[in-house]
């Protein structure tokens, strides 16, 4: 994988969705967004994604639900999933890890660390 990777970003905040889209587009990633867990999982089923970024606190289905749905789904279940959260507690990271998260990003993130972490898990240079 060397060229543009397709990222699914799930967050109920419009601001965060636009921020992530803008940051990743500038770094050459293609981004699709969803505004809650259920529509995120639906979108995942409809597209082919190289990585997923998900918020934890969301209506309908939270981020742990998203991870579980993808990891136990039939399709692309080993996709890298990054959890984006305002909470940096070790307990939360441990929970995310146990749910099957690949890594985590603490909000607010800076552009460099978001892109760096994504490149690390997708292998895109």
């Amino acid at each position, binding site marked *: *994988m060397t060229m543009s990777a397709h990222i699914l970003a799930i967050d109920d*905040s419009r601001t965060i969705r636009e921020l992530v889209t803008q940051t990743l587009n500038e770094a050459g990633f293609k981004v699709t967004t969803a505004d809650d867990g259920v529509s995120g999982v639906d979108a995942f089923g409809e597209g082919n994604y190289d990585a997923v970024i998900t918020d934890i606190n*969301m209506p309908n289905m939270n981020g742990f639900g998203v991870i579980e749905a993808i990891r136990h789904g039939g399709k692309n279940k080993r996709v890298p999933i990054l959890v984006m959260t*305002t*909470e940096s*507690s070790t307990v939360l990271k441990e929970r995310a890890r146990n749910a099957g998260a690949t*890594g985590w990003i603490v*909000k607010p993130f800076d552009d460099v660390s978001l892109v760096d972490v994504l490149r690390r898990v997708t292998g895109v240079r």
Partner: protein
Amino acid sequence: MSVDGLRETFFAECEDLLDALAEGLSALEADASDDETVNAIFRAVHSIKGAAGAFGLSDLVDFTHRFETVLDLVRSGKLAVDEEVLHAVTRSGDCLANLIEAAHSESGDTPEAMAFLMNSLSDLIAVGGGDEDDGGSADFSFTAVTLEPLDLEPIETQNTFEIRFKPYRALFDNGHDPVHLIAALSDLGSLDVSCDVSGVPEINEFDPDESYLSWAMSLSGDVAEGEIRKVFAFVEGLCALSIAPATEVAAGNLEQTDTDEPSQPTGQSIAVGNREPKVESKATDANNEKPKVMSHSLSTRSLISARSS
């Protein structure tokens, strides 16, 4: 979209969230027993906090953090909605609207009631047995990601580290790929990689979801151990890993806790150039096949087939 455009998106979103908050607060006044009402209020405040952090609005982050901590205590039943709580959250809703307005107009004003409400919220957090220091703006550091400040070693030196890495099955289950980790190591210096395929069973016993391979690598360059550890930050606990300066390394010291004994690498030896994650075979095969050049889309499967060819 420009940063200004993003700010406008944020403030437009804040208006929607403040509407949702006001709606939730009046519902709470009418009926304090509905869990979903408290959830909706919490989410509105939480969303404002999450996005405010992106714009460095620290007053807003601090205030919403304390506000949401109280709401979280209500949500988890640790704090009952009595008159005092109701009064504090309603006034906090007003204060939040003022804070957002001040941030939008960049007036630099702090709402009069803020200091007082911060104290009231603190008191309620104490009553509910919560911890207000957990997750506030002071906690908004990037160090928790992966970009930890490096253990900078000022002297330019040429170090060599021996790295032994055996992924557990859970590493793959969590969406990691050893190839990306190896590629990231190759960014740090000159990397020699050899893959041990001796654990791969016969085809009739082969489980495609199982982890059979391990790697022995030698990394040379002006590199500190902290930088190497950083590469493996997300996979800690999902693999057996040993990193040691070359001189101290003894054969077979992988902290392996499961499966078979580590054996001498029998796979092909691969050199990975600095910055160029090109992987080429140094194996001198009898049939003199030309060196395989594998990109970092190199998969477990291709390593196995390279071995068996």
